[in-house]
């Protein structure tokens, strides 16, 4: 077994994630930590985020930045500026062009804010488009209508964004193959650089799950969802979008560098309530509680010590468990588990560690095992969870 250090990245850069937990209203399927905007908490929230960034800065190069939530763009311009400024300055000072993403909703992206983002060095914007069908948007309890999406994209282009992502959701109650392919077509027509297509999940505690339980919405048929997934790959592929992860597609090499950090199980710092960090082998989640967050970071004198009370959970896996988790993450990528990369990062030989799992799933046609990588086949992608179970 090669004697590489676990987490080869620990000397290199770190991805930064900033969670801003406010939204205009809550979408029906959403289980991210987001609340209706609390105007009077915003100044303290900004102060807290700035403080946390300062205190928890690992002092290493920033590889990528991703500002999400929540909907960052619901913050008033000055507040948004105050949050982004410190990162912006650091990135500019380093003088290296890195991916800097901000999430936005089609209905909250106005010219001024988009320009502000550009000014702060944001070079990638990600819109929660979700669907181009009015009825589906209503089921999802989204605030925009399909025309807002086109408008948002053209505003972004006008502001100078060369890297635009659209998020879409399939498997929506009432959705048909036809309407899904129509949404794909309309998204493609807008020419985004990146498209993420997620399957709707019924998460505990969401409005949609409640409605499903009461029989008010009927989930999409499993077979239809499988077909939608397949249509996604072929329709986007035909339009020049390469699938590089189960739900992610890019054109012209514009893969999301920040998310690649997650999928390769590399290091990142998460700032804001509910954000997750993975540094030095420790994954740590901050409590999903804005009030406690603000009290800790905006008020106290020595927040460094108090911050421990904000940790919701913290986990440090053993070497082998970490390697297994890394493999499961990498399987999501079309590049799969690249053997060299895997060994360098975990110290294990993938073919030794997962011999039985590879053999079984390759025999079932779910994995390919050649060309220096272990990858899910198309059939394997559809049954990814089952394959991944064998790697755990």
């Amino acid at each position, binding site marked *: 077994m090669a004697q590489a250090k676990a987490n080869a990245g620990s000397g290199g850069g770190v991805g930064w994630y900033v969670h801003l937990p406010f939204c205009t209203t809550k979408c029906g399927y959403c289980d991210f930590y987001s609340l209706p905007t609390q105007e009077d908490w915003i100044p303290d929230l900004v102060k807290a985020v700035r403080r946390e960034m300062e205190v928890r800065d690992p002092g290493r190069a920033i590889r990528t930045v991703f500002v999400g939530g929540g909907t960052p763009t619901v913050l008033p311009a000055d507040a948004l500026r105050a949050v982004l400024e410190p990162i912006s300055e650091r990135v500019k000072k380093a003088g290296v062009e890195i991916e800097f993403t901000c999430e936005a909703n089609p209905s909250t992206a106005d010219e001024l804010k988009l320009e502000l983002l550009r000014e702060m060095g944001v070079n990638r914007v990600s819109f929660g488009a979700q669907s181009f069908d009015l009825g589906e948007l209503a089921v999802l309890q989204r605030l925009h209508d399909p025309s807002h999406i086109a408008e948002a994209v053209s505003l972004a282009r006008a502001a100078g964004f060369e890297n635009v992502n659209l998020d879409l959701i399939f498997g929506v109650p009432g959705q048909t193959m036809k309407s899904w392919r129509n949404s794909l077509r309309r998204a493609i027509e807008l020419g985004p650089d990146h498209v993420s297509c997620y399957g709707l999940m019924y998460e505990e505690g969401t409005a949609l799950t409640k409605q499903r339980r009461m029989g008010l919405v009927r989930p999409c048929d499993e077979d239809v969802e499988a077909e939608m997934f397949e249509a996604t790959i072929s329709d986007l592929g035909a339009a020049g979008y390469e699938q590089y992860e189960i739900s992610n597609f890019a054109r012209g090499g514009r893969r999301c560098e920040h998310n690649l950090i997650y999928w390769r199980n590399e290091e990142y710092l998460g700032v804001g309530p509910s954000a997750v960090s993975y540094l030095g082998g420790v994954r740590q989640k901050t409590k999903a509680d804005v009030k406690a967050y603000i009290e800790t970071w905006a008020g106290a004198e020595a927040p460094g010590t108090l911050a421990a009370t904000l940790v919701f959970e913290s986990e440090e896996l053993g070497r082998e468990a970490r390697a297994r988790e890394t493999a499961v993450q990498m399987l999501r990528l079309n590049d799969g588990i690249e053997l060299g990369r895997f060994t360098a990062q975990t110290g294990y030989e993938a073919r030794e560690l997962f011999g039985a799992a590879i053999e079984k799933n390759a025999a079932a046609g779910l994995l390919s095992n050649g060309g220096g990588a272990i990858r899910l086949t198309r059939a394997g992608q559809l049954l990814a969870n089952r394959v991944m*179970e064998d790697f755990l």
Partner: protein
Amino acid sequence: MDISRIRNFSIIAHIDHGKSTLADRLLETCGAVEKRDMRAQYLDDMELEREMGITIKANRATLRHEYKGTRVPAGEYMLNLIDTPGHVDFHYEVSRALAACEGVLLLVDASQGIEAQTLANAYKAVEAGLAIIPVINKIDLPAARPHDIAEELENTLSLPAEEAIFVSAKSGMGVPELLDAIVERLPPPKGDSTKPLKALIYDAKVDPHRGVICHIRVFDGLIARNDKVQLMGVGREYHATDVGKFFPKITSLENLTAGDVGYMFAGIKTIHDVNIGDTVTHASNPCDAALPGYHPPQQMVFCDFFPGPGTTSIQLREALEKLWLNDSSFGFEPTSSAALGTGFRCGFLGLLHMKIIQERLERESAVDLVQTAPTVPYELLLPNNKVIKIESPADMPSPDKFLEIREPMIRAEIVVPARSIGALMQLADERRGTHKKTDYLSTDRVVLTYEFPMGEVIYDFYDRLKSLTSGYGTMNYELTNYKAGDLVKLDILVNATPVDALSVIVHRDKAEIRGRRLITRLRKEISRHQFEIPLQAAVGSKVIARETIKAVRKDVTAKCYGGDVSRKRKLLEKQKEGKKRMKQVGNVTIPQEAFMSVLDPGDE
């Protein structure tokens, strides 16, 4: 104690009519329990009884009542009360209790009126020749109709309406009058303390520290601490190490005399060393003849328990043995299934009893169970004229191996509002019921007597009855005999392999519809696999219904977990763990619920 100052009685009633609550008030009114120690259903001391709010085991207590009236001599009386369970599965407890008493309080809920177990228990008391005090309870309820109910009692059971005592076990209203009535109206026990000892073991329990405690009723003679006694039925001798009563705290006494109800410890190790119903006498001076005793309660519901994935069959055996030491009314023996491996065939008094045992096994011994659907026992007449019993559909041989198959029959008394008669008759028809008679309790309530094959009613009939009578229907039943029927074994094949644990015995005319429903239900319970799974229901070699579980198309989480990698991993771990906990039959994973599919008769 002067025998004329003793009263022995049981409280009997339909489920939930307030027996245990009335016992509370009697204890409290006589000062047996301090107010601060009082809790609802004080005598229900099993954890499960308290949780479910029902009485499972009969309980007893001795009260002292200062009688100030004039109809019998005034002064202190000793009242021995036994609180009985109302549920039909535990009716043998009532029969046992009655043999220790001279009278009963027949309790009826003032808003519900007479129900099926009211009748069944009242008949038992009449049969045993006991004095009955009708007590109408819950008169505090707004819907209470005590006078109407007293009328009902008079019409149906010939208990004079004016004899009924109105009480509220909740508030205590009427309870002092009831205590006086017990003294005045119930006869004192008969018996002669100078004769040789003759006492009945009417119940027994295990005390974790002191071994078996026998609950006894002394008919003649006297039993004292250190007496050498003999259990006449089993023919074994013991030393009575302690005798006494429950006040309701356990209290040692010098002796118990004729007419008394109390307890005896005699160094008996296990519950299986005593026969409930046995007679206790002195080893050196035995009484002339033993008391008649009881028929042992019959196990009428059977199912198999197999160790689940986290449990070994040795652990399961130990768990069953441990429970069996506390509850002699269930039985188990090793069995094996082609599909599920080695397990245990268990017999129960009824479905509730089964659920209680299952719950206690899981709770007290933390075993993982795979349970097959319950079944009634069947008799087979073999070509050599022998009759054998089978307690699992899996044991039913092919039709050429026997001449006749017989199913257990019950006589059921069903009390329903008159307006529900039509609906009930239709349901009874579907369940192969034979109407025997109809009696009116009042103008709007009737008792229908039916004969049913037991297998048609034990699972869900009661729920159906409740729903078609908006909750007012009640039922009581008892086993009558075994009767030949046109019964066949319905086999279920999963992925072309017969799964013996899913077989059922059904009437030929119903095989097809039951088969179809069963596999429809199974299709929902068994999750999709990576291959297609055919499901078939067959009688002999004839397939009568089929369905297919399609191969899984999609099992992928297409979602953005962002940096929450741990969460995603934990979800996968959970899914993997869940599969490990299911039973693998061939290459198909079958969840526990699937084995219960048989119980779902679907919509009829």
